[in-house]
Every structure is written in C-alpha cells, then in structure tokens.
C-alpha cells in the first residue's frame, strides 16, 4: 500500500530538499569533544546568582503579563468590530481587520528595537512591544472565535429585545471565554519567551542577564537562568490549565 511509485517519488523529492537545505545551512555532526567541553562549563549552575535570577525572572513575568493582559483588554472590544457577524458594517470590518494584520505583521523584536530607541532601555519598551504585537494576534484569534460562536444564544438574546452590543455581551462572550483564556495563556507563554529575546536588546529581565553572561562566557550563570526560564514557562502552563479547568 505504501510502497507505490508516487510515494517513493515524493519521499525521494523531500529527502533531496532536506539534503539541499542541510548543505545550504552547513549542517554537520557536532564534534563530541566540543560538546563535552562546552557542557562542562555549563554545570553545575552558579546557585550564588539565585536571588539575581529570581528578581530578573519576576521582571520577565511582569513584562509578559502586563503586555498580554493589556493586549487582551484592548483586543476583546476590537475583535467584535473585526468579526463579520458583530461588526457594524463592511467598512469597519475591513478597516479593523487590516489594522490587526498590520499590528501582527511587525515582529515584536522590531517593535522592541523601536521602543528602546523611543523611550530608552528597560522593561517598559518590552511591555509596549508585546502589547502592540499581541493586540494584533489576540484580536484576530478572538474575532475568529466570535465568528464561529453558536448562533442560537445570540438569536435568543436578540429575541428578548436586547440591542446588538448586549447580544455580543450576553450571547457571544460567555460562549467564547474558555477559548479566549486558552489563547491568552498561550500568548502569555509566548510573551515570556519574547521578553527573553527582548532582553537581548536591553529590555531588561532574565533575557538581558542571559545575554550579558553569555557574552562574557559565564555559562554556569547561563545554565541557572535557563532553569529559571523553564520554571517560568512550566508555571504559566500550569496556571493556564488551572484557570481553564476552573472556567470550562
């Protein structure tokens, strides 16, 4: 069943592209002695830096939380204008959709560079970068949830004599809340990783520590920061699951 001429040709073709891409990107086996020497400098982690790593982790958490929660608060009302079933008219729908696409199309790292220049170094630049990018992302995702919401409760709310904004509030929002939270916590998790990268350009947090110590070959510090980063991501994932379970 699997070994027919067409499948073999497809497999050979994909394999050829893998080889071509590997040559183009210089993929080759990592010398084992290099790997061992490098790993030895990573371990054990430098536990003396725990307090510093903890306070930087909290800044990263604050940046990710503030950027995404503000984005969520702005994205929810905007998404009702960007959904074809709740938007007042086609003009508003297309304008808001285009605006969200524009916000999404600028990578947060570019926004971060822009805000570092505009308002100076520090976590605030990262908050703004994450906020703006996530308004675009969450706005689109929530608009799609609104469009696919069950029409029944909306029709019922409408039939009770409530206006369009109340139909959105009572006929749509309660239905989509679990999925909105799901998207939010995923974006929160992504924002933690983003704020690390933004730290590389001077936006503070554990990302900046990681970058500085990597530049100065303090790999024992780096390994500690990586552990904290993993802890942060696991914490947000568990928090998201807990909140979703409570709400669903």
């Amino acid at each position, binding site marked *: 069943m699997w070994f027919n001429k067409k499948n073999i040709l497809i497999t050979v073709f994909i394999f050829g592209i893998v080889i071509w891409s590997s040559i183009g990107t210089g993929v080759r086996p990592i010398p084992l002695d290099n790997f061992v020497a490098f790993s030895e400098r990573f371990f054990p982690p430098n536990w003396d830096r725990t307090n510093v790593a903890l306070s930087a982790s909290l800044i990263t958490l604050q940046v990710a939380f503030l950027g995404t929660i503000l984005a969520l608060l702005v994205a929810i009302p905007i998404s009702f204008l960007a959904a074809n079933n709740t938007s007042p008219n086609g003009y508003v729908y297309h304008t808001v959709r285009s605006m969200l696409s524009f916000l999404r199309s600028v990578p947060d790292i570019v926004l971060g560079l822009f805000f570092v220049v505009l308002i100076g170094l520090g976590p605030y630049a990262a908050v703004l970068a994450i906020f703006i990018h996530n308004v675009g992302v969450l706005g689109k995702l929530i608009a799609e949830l609104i469009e696919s919401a069950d029409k*029944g409760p909306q029709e019922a709310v409408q*039939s*009770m004599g409530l206006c369009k904004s*109340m139909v959105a*509030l009572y006929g749509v929002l*309660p239905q989509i809340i679990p999925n909105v939270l799901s998207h939010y916590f995923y974006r929160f998790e992504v924002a933690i990783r983003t704020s690390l990268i933004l730290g590389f350009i001077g936006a503070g947090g554990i990302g900046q520590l990681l970058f500085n110590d990597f530049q100065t070959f303090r790999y024992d510090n780096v390994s500690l920061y990586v552990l904290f980063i993993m802890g942060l991501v696991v914490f947000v994932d568990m928090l998201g699951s807990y909140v979703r379970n409570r709400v669903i």
Partner: protein
Amino acid sequence: MVLTLQDVSMIYKSKGNKGKKEQALDSINLSILQGEFVGVLGRSGAGKSTFIRCINQLVRPSHGKVIWLDKEMTTMNKDQLCITRREIGMIFQQFNLVPRLSAHKNCVMGGFGYRPRWKNMLGLITAEERERAMRALERVGIDHMAHKRVDQLSGGQQQRVAIARMIMQKPKLILGDEPVSSLDPTTSKEVMQLIRDVHDTENMTTLINLHNVELALEYCDRIIGLAEGRLVFDGSPQDVDDHALKTIYG
C-alpha cells in the same frame, strides 16, 4: 386582531450558488386573535421557522407587512424593534440558553430588555429581579436546579429554563420554533402542557411550530399548515382530516 400578516414573502439569496434565490415564504396572509393558541404544521423546509422568525423580525421579510398590536414591525428601526421584541417571547428547538451560565442567570436575562443599557453592561441584578427569576423557575418546576449550569441539565430541564426565561420577559405573544422536537415523547407532552398552562394563566397569544401532529391537535385551538412557503391550511383541530394532512404534508 393582535397579529396580522399581510402578503408576507421571504426570499433567501443563496451565497454559494451564483445568487440563486430560494422562496421560503410566499404571500402569507393571516390574522391571529388575542388568546389563540396556534399550531403551525408543515414538512421540513416548508418555511415554518422562517414564518415564526418573520413575526419578531429575527428574519426581515422581503415583502409584506407584519402588524403587532397596531404597530407595523416591518418598518421599525433597530431601537423600535428592540422595544417591541420585549413583548414577544420565543422558545427554540435547541433551547438557546447561554451555556456555562446557571439556570437562574439565564432566567434573569429574560428581563434584561426592560433595563437601562448601562445596567446590562455592568450585569447588575437587583434582589427583586433575583426573586422574580426564582419564582419563574419555581413556576416551571426547576427551582431546585437554579444554580446548576444549564449545560449540565437534561433537554427537558433546559427547555423549562427557556420557558422560565420567557416568563421573566413578560411577553404578550409566545413564539415557539419546534420547542419539543428534540425531546422524548413524555417530556414533549410535559413541556407542551407547561406552555399551554403559561398561555392560559397569563392570557397570552401563542404561535408554535410543531412536527408532531398529535401534539398539535391535543394542545392547539387553531392549526395552520404551510407547504413550500404557502399557507395551505387554516382551521380548527377538528378540521384536520386526512385530506388536510395530505395538503400540508403532500
């Protein structure tokens, strides 16, 4: 006459079919008297749901007039429609309750049409509204489930909550779009009896789509039949004989 339909037609433009048009209702003329309990019979696709939705303008008819208590609904703007819809309660086949909310909260929402917008926006509920919702739930025999989420209730229980929500709305007209079609025969009878009781005690007028002819004959005062969007029968339950059924169902 509390409700009059004059030459009401509805044509749907099909989106994916090169603008092909589908006539759901064809020149319906009908008058409903105060206090009548009217059953609407017809095959699937005969236009029953469109007919019911044209009355409260959830579907705007392509042509004709719908006159409710001397007010022409077809020419109303959105705000006027919202005010008028408060007088018309609706019960749906799939109950259309807001999932994840409790039976009590769903019931309270029935009265939201009478409140200022800001109060609805903030979701503020007075003690009097809470009490009234509890009484409505008690009336339909579901008060012991008041604080349970509606998606954890059975179909019959959900429809009772929907009826309580409708009572909370204090309507003068009840519209039902196949409210018992997704229920078992015993529960269907219980729900129909409940609707009939509410209709009788509150002196309402009721129009209800039904698939089950026996239920229609048992509970309705007047039967109308639709076939291919046209009104093909209008008479009392006693007039529904084999010939009438053949006219309606083909």
